[in-house]
């Protein structure tokens, strides 16, 4: 009993040591990652300021409490001062705290206000990317170039360095340019967050939120969805490749060519063979559908319906077309008519009706999709 005072002091000095080491070993993922844009840099400084204030306040509070526990113990014969609350300090001492705390509060708010004004600065950007969250993937649209990228989790083993941190198609951005992100969502709330380059604002269906950055260093930056979006919330990583301006322009050019080719194919009147459609459909399926319906087509029991042997994929073609084109309200099944072109929809339906032993042998042509729309 007589040694008890030592232990709380002990515990809390360990904790403060943790805090100090947090500042020292920033490389070991104890702290916010090193910022690579001016704005996240300012936020980092603000974070370090409040952390320091927090640290000093804790040192003061722990110091006073431990001193009191040591000094004013009954076992050492200390008698309580029954009149302390009646003397000058006892009557007015409480006023100290509001004054000191108000001072600290105002200085924190003051240093936050300029950063906040920067966060809310919506001036023109060089590159504008619309970031759309859906269950459970990100779609990036370069608004000025008409380029669209769908980014999905790359499946890796839990032992891999990049487990849950890697995607098939990263977002490519130029360094040194002001980039504006427009955040929205198609189904539920999501939040796009890459701590090094940009803070988060929620992606909300029906809303467009805006954030911006100017990346200062080339490299690969990773983040993940921060707002609970249901079953696949842990499986929505974000990868940003920051490259030089020339590389970025080349990449955009390449994407544009690929997209032009794809849309030319989609709008041609060509009648596709079943094998061609199945091959294309598998790609579309892997990009857009696996998160819920799984690569095996078995879905997740009680959550996502199975396509393998399921009513939709083996039943009438019209129903299948309808659900893929218009989605099913009140569920995670999205309406794909705006997201996929006619060829892609035709291909994925053909794939689903012929894969996993669903050997219906049926072929859906882009023209059928057009008619169903």
């Amino acid at each position, binding site marked *: *009993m007589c040694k*008890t005072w030592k232990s709380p002091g002990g*515990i*809390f000095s360990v*904790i403060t040591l943790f805090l100090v080491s*947090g500042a020292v070993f920033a490389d070991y993922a104890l702290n*916010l990652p090193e910022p690579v844009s001016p704005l*996240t840099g300012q*936020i980092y400084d*603000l974070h370090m300021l409040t952390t320091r*204030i*927090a640290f000093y306040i804790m040192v003061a509070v722990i110091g*006073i*409490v431990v001193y*009191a526990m040591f000094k*004013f*113990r009954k076992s050492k014969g*200390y008698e*309580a*001062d*029954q009149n*302390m*609350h009646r003397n000058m300090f*006892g009557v007015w*001492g*409480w006023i100290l705290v509001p004054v000191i*705390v*108000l001072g600290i*509060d105002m200085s*924190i*708010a003051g240093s*936050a206000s300029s950063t*906040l004004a920067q*966060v809310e600065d919506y001036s023109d950007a060089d590159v504008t990317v619309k970031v759309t969250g859906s269950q459970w993937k990100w779609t990036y649209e370069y608004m000025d170039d008409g380029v669209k990228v769908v980014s999905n989790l790359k499946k890796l083993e*839990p*032992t*891999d360095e990049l487990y*849950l941190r890697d995607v098939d198609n990263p977002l490519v951005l130029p360094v040194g340019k002001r980039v504006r992100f427009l955040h929205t969502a198609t189904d539920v*709330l999501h939040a796009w*967050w890459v*701590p090094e380059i940009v*803070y*988060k*604002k*929620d992606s*909300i*269906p029906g*809303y467009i*939120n*805006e954030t911006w950055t100017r990346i200062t260093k080339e490299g690969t930056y990773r983040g993940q969805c*921060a*707002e*609970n979006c*249901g079953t696949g*919330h*842990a*499986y929505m990583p974000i990868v940003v490749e920051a490259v030089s301006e020339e590389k970025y322009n080349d990449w955009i050019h390449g994407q544009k060519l690929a997209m032009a080719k794809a849309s030319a194919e989609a709008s041609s009147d060509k009648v596709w063979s079943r094998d061609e459609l199945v091959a294309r459909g598998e790609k579309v399926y892997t990009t857009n559908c696996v998160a819920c319906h799984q690569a095996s087509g078995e879905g997740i029991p*009680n*959550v996502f319906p199975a396509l393998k042997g399921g009513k939709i994929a083996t039943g009438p073609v019209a129903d299948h077309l309808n659900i893929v084109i218009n989605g099913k309200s*009140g569920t995670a099944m999205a309406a794909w008519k705006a997201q996929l072109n006619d060829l892609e929809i035709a291909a994925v339906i053909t794939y689903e009706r012929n894969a996993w032993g669903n050997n219906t042998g049926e072929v859906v042509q882009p023209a059928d999709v057009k008619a169903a729309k």
Partner: protein
Amino acid sequence: MSTAEMAHEADHHGPPKGWKRWVFSTNHKDIGTMYLIFALVMLFLGGAMAMVIRAELYMPGLQIVDPDTYNNLVTNHALIMVFGLVMPAAAGMANWMIPMMIGAPDMALPRLNNLSFWLLPAAGTMLVLSMLIGFIPGTGQQVNTGWTLYPPLSIQAGMGMDMLIFTIHLLGISSILASINIVTTILNMRAPGMTLMKMPLFVWAWLFTGLLLIVIMPVLAGGVTMLLFDRHFGTAFFDAAGGGDPVLFQHLFWFFGHPEVYVLLLPSIGVLGLIIPTFSRKPLFGYKPLVWFMGILFALGLVVWAHHQYTVGMSLGAVTYFMIGTILISIPVGLMIFNFIFTMWRGSLTFETPMLFAIAIILMFSFAGVTGVMLAVVPADLQYHDTYFVVAHFHYALVPGAVFGLYAGVFYWLPKWTGHMYDEKLGKIFFWWTTIAFNITFFPQHFSGLAGMPRRIVDYSIQFTEFNVVSSLGAFAFGLSHLLFLYIIIKTIRGGKEATNKPWEGAQVGTPGLEWDLSSPPPFHSFTTPPAIK
């Protein structure tokens, strides 16, 4: 009924026998006991869920539960701890202690008291069923939203969500009725001479808590009812496609949710306001400012809700207002810490279990306070938001601030309730075990949060492994320590050293302390004639 008649009745009518004593009870002590037992059951239920959560997070990869079950557990863990553990335990203590503290014969509305308790077991059962029902095929998706129930995700969920909505209605009715009862008791049932400014701090704390609950619970009930209508009756309050607004729900929820934090904290602060003077043998430092500042906390708490949703895209003016309002809360909270520390200052300290808890709470709650100010700063919060930093912060606020405060109260009042002293040595072991394990569990989460680990994820990338392993090991130790807690309570109820009327030497220093004039345990009906106030 005249006083003489009441005294007569008290002489001849002890507690009824058997199950009727409990089911039909209108006695504040019996109902208080039932509240406390209910809270204890819920503590173990919610704790078991936390153990599953931490076991799943022990390593990267899916080991024990699937993603929906995981977030279903997260949702239920939070709701059980908030509505099943802390609020009923605090209400149980209010039931037991407030009539005795203010010299009243019982609660003002004893039958209402019975109703507000017996709604709880029903609500608690429904709460657990809302989690289990998702496992029955054909009931749709599990409730995987987290306790905030944000639409549109909560629109997607299956039948469990409907059950949860009605559970929240029941819980809301229960706590509104309990609050009306407590506020009425405090305002109308005080013994002559027990002025408001003589009331023990615990009574003041509960007055503000009760008023807060009456203000906020209807807002939550309204919000979840709108959710119910969106789900089943074709409205579009929260559906942007129908002209509604998903963010509206967040405002309604947090208008309830933020003051709810003070609902959880204030009773425990009230308990500390009794324990610290007792074991410092010195009156509470700055009683009047503390009462006033609790009032300020009450008022400020109602107008800063949107700091939970800085990221939804509010205007610059709005976020600035909510930021300043939020960091101003550090003033009343800082004052509480200061006054508690200066109650100890130049006192004559001893370190029984309740006092150990009180001191640990001062330190750990201060820590939650400073991380709270960090989170209040908008640009920084845009980085912290929805990460484990937030998880660590609110567990530091609510576990020491609310739960440990209630443990301190249990140890402080167990001798009064049972007539037996608890085992001081075991009490101290429990304190050290649980406090150290708590810190091992939640301190590393600050780091994993800063490093970028989001909340409510069932699986994480390997860079977060070390901190999660530490956290999980701490959590298992934290969970185990509660078996000792249970053992101490049962042991104390069954026997032990007899407790005197006033087992704590300093219990009446600077406060009337009427409860300590009664025997331990107190008679079935405490004050049949109003006691004299010193």
